[in-house]
């Protein structure tokens, strides 16, 4: 049996004085242990909605999700979730953030200390454990978010556009970091992205979802050796094939707009993302080697 089973999911958003909007219908797929799967699709194809349901933050109208044979009914530490804006607790240090899941699950001090060292090792965050998130660059924040989600050894890691808020130059670098981190942790991953290049670079398997009710229009295995080279001919072929599929997925969508979904159902607070990004643009600038903004 596969690690993750998604069966016949249907999800509809209803708003007053508007016809109900079917986001996902008859959606089924499964993920094997150890696989890195990307959900790729144009905005509005329901990929983030699906991930939010995998996380247990939202329930499906009909259909079931099983993780390791257990039905998913609400959030839990068997799934590590990395939010688009990382959602690091700004009032906790890096160490407190990373160890939060162990703290609330009452692991003893020795276990926590041991796990902290392991996680700092794989994320190369030694020396930053007592800093606050606001003092970190975008890339370091990402690593903290990933190892925080990994801390209690979840069955699966769920990534919601983990690089969505990062600007283009930083992206490729952080994709490399993410690939190394996930490889070292040896975990199963489901990642939502709209970036074709990113999905080919990171995944074993890419599922392309259509803007029309989230129909799966392609389930493609990326058969490339790791670490991958973006320059290779095979890589470029995957990218161009998937790019064409995403275009097709977009055309299927009709007149759908993101704004039609009520904010509470979008899974992320977009206003917050915008303000968070403004607040942190200074740090990403620094990380890009640009000069520090004038105080």
């Amino acid at each position, binding site marked *: 049996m596969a690690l993750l089973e998604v069966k016949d999911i249907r999800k509809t958003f209803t708003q007053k004085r508007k016809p109900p909007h079917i986001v996902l219908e008859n959606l089924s797929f499964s993920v094997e242990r150890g696989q890195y799967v990307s959900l790729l699709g144009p905005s509005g194809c329901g990929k983030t909605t699906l991930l939010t349901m995998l*996380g*247990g*933050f939202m329930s499906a109208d009909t259909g079931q999700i099983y993780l390791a044979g257990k039905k998913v009914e*609400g*959030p*839990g*530490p068997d*799934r*590590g*979730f990395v*939010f688009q*804006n990382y*959602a690091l*607790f*700004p*009032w*906790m240090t890096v160490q407190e953030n990373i160890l*939060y*899941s162990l703290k*609330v*699950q009452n692991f003893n001090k020795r276990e926590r200390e041991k796990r902290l060292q392991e996680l700092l090792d794989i994320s190369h965050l030694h020396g930053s454990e007592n*800093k*606050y998130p*606001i*003092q970190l660059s975008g890339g370091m924040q990402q690593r903290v978010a990933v190892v*925080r*989600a990994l*801390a*209690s050894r979840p069955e699966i890691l769920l990534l919601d556009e983990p690089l969505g808020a990062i600007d283009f130059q930083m992206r490729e670098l952080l994709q490399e970091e993410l690939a190394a981190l996930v490889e070292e942790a040896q975990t199963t991953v489901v990642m939502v992205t709209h970036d074709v290049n990113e999905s080919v670079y990171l995944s074993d398997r890419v599922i392309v979802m259509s803007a029309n009710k989230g129909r799966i229009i392609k389930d493609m295995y990326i058969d490339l050796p790791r670490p991958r080279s973006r320059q290779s001919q095979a890589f470029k072929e995957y990218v161009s094939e998937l790019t064409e599929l995403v275009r097709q997925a977009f055309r299927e969508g009709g007149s759908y707009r993101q704004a039609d979904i009520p904010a509470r159902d979008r899974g*992320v*607070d977009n206003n*917050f993302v915008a303000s*968070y990004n403004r607040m942190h643009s200074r740090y990403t600038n620094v990380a890009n080697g640009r000069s520090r903004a004038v*105080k």
Partner: protein
Amino acid sequence: MERHGSTIPDVGNARLSLGDAFDKYRGSFYTLIVLVILMIIWNLAANKIQNTLLLPYFSETAMEFITAWGDPVIMFNLGLTLKRVFTGFLYAFIIGVPLGLLMGYSATAMQSLAPLMNSIRQVPIMAWVPLSIIWFGLGDGPTVFLIAMSAVFPLAINTIAGVEGIDSNYYNAARSMGASRRDLVRDIVVPGAMPNILTGCRLAMGAGWMSVICAEFIATSAGFGFLMVEAQVRLETAQLYALMVMSGLVGYAIDKVFVAFERKMTSWRFKDGFVGS
């Protein structure tokens, strides 16, 4: 550094620079200039009016101000008033913060309590004076009550705003890591709302300090406000001015203490030169 393309002449800091030591005290220096100008205007006006009952000379007021700090009667009454303010603030804190946390966190609590709270806080604070005297008699009782009454709303409202402003993904993140409801309150709700709670404390303290003096005009025969009424009755205008300046400065000092406390309590907001609201 080598430059490419168009060059912008580097004029450096265009402001007049008088050295680092001066830059550090720039703000204080400007404040001092404003004070000196005010003093000159004051003396010119006093010269023009020639009536110390309406407007005593600056020097006279300044003398009163300086002697006031050594006057045991004034200091005793100032201490009394401060004690009342802190007692009233404490009551307001004990009621306002939990109330705000509850109303910010629970939609049910918000819906049931908000109309009541929003109408009670429209009642002018001085309108509570007659009732508070009936309830508590004269003395400490009504003043403490009035301070608590004027401080509780800024505290509750800011706490509500603080809780409501917490990103829902913080809750989601915590729950996905296995946090219980108690963990959420302790680790997300309280620290997430803390910046607003502390702002609420500042506003509440300010409101309390302002209302205590009014309350003491009426409801008691001791305290800083009572001294002001006394000065007025004895036609000691210079002393009245001095007491007013004192009340302003004491309020300012309390606020400064709260700002320092705020920075200490939420130091995570002020790391690496980042300055919050």
